[in-house]
């Protein structure tokens, strides 16, 4: 796969279709592939990587990149194309300046899950027949592939590309995921239990802003939390209220726009399941206003900027589930 991608990228660079390539490059460790822009065939040969750890959603980078001189080639996984499409809907990406190649998605691996097995000093990770062979400083370890799959891939919603110029590999389908199971589990708790759950999760927040900075829906020129005029600006959460405030407002601002790409949870250094907040909104929207998948197409109206005359009343919130 990686070879094929490099080959095609070099062709497109050579024939002048694009002048840059957005992909991933190897990091210091085998498992920290990071997004990168390549300008020459040599750079591609040397650094370009696409493996079990190239999880990062590249679509957000295209906001800035598509505004630069010349066309850029972007390799997008199915989930990334949803974000890409949503950003097109919001006029944030200039489509003409991007050449999209759809590539198959995961499942990708979460190194934290490998480390959680007590495996450290990782040098390389190889998938051999769904068994991970992990070379470490201390010898070779093995573990089942499926136990190391990242949260976002385990609950994958779709393997179908919703926007691309060409595809490498076979096209997949929209899946029937169980992504709302955890939300439902929480909904079935008592109010006090839910409060305790979130109190302990959100109190871990160190306000590093990683979730915001990686989120392809959080693309504001100037975030309200950085803007003294908004009245709610804050640098670091001073107490538990501000922790909640930040995450409620953030979830609300991306409600109806969040494509559920799972990046927020992936990058959280404190492992807070932030995607649950977004999924709660998605689940509510689906059940109250009809199935809606942000980014799935270019025409459906976002449920928060739309309405029906016979929408349910907010009292549904007070009447359902457990108090």
């Amino acid at each position, binding site marked *: 796969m990686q070879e094929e991608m490099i080959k095609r990228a070099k062709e497109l660079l050579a024939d002048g279709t694009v002048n840059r390539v957005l992909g991933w490059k190897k990091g210091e460790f085998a498992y920290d592939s990071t997004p990168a822009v390549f300008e020459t065939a040599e750079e591609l040969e040397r650094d370009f990587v696409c493996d079990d750890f190239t999880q990062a959603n590249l679509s957000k980078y295209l906001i800035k990149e598509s505004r630069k001189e010349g066309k850029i080639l972007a390799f997008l996984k199915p989930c990334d194309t949803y974000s890409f499409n949503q950003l097109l809907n919001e006029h944030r990406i200039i489509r003409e300046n991007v050449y999209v190649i759809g590539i198959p998605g995961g499942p990708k691996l979460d190194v934290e899950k490998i480390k959680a097995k007590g495996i450290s000093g990782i040098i390389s990770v190889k998938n051999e027949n769904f068994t991970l062979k992990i070379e470490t400083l201390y010898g070779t370890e093995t573990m089942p592939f499926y136990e190391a799959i990242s949260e976002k891939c385990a609950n994958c919603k779709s393997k179908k590309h919703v926007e691309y110029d060409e595809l490498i590999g076979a096209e997949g389908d929209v899946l029937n995921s169980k992504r709302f199971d955890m939300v439902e589990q929480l909904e079935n708790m008592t109010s006090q239990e839910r*409060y305790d759950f*979130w109190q302990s999760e959100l109190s871990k927040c160190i306000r590093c802003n990683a979730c915001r900075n990686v989120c392809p829906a959080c693309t504001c020129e100037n975030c309200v939390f950085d803007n003294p005029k908004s009245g709610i600006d804050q640098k670091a959460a001073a107490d538990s*209220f501000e922790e*909640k405030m930040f995450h409620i407002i953030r979830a609300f601002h991306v409600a109806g726009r969040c494509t559920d790409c799972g990046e927020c949870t992936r990058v959280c250094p404190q492992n807070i399941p932030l995607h649950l907040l977004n999924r709660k909104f998605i689940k*509510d929207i689906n059940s109250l206003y009809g199935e809606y998948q942000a980014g799935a197409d270019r025409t459906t109206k976002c449920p928060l900027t739309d*309405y029906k005359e016979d929408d*349910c009343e907010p009292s549904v*919130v007070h009447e359902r589930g457990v108090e």
Partner: protein
Amino acid sequence: MQVNENFEPVIVAFCCNWCSYAGADLSGTNRLNYPTNVKIIRVPCSCRVNPMFILRAFQKGADGVIICGCHPGDCHYTSGNYFTRRRITLLYSMLDFLGIERNRTRLEWVSAAEGAKFAAVMNEFTEDVRKLGPNRRLEDLRCRKK
């Protein structure tokens, strides 16, 4: 839960200028009593109420927040309250999801003619919040009153 009889909740009511604020005025004109705990903030339309305002109220010490707007279909701006209904339903659902007591938040449709309804809603809401006791789950400790 123990009910503190002496607890006086702070209640912020956002009322749209055209229907609910006028409905509140009408309950005054008709001398219909509701508790002094309720303080009204006038907004042009219920759709002007930003979730930030609601959180801000809880942060600064409110124990309950209620939003009042024109009945669906009667919005002065034709569609404002339909947006309110979706936004606030989702926000309240989220607050509930985070374990905030659901009776601290409410949305009511009160027309300019419903002075009696306005007073009744405020009486009921104040009692609901009084039963819940002070807001502890969504407060900013720095703002707590002695």
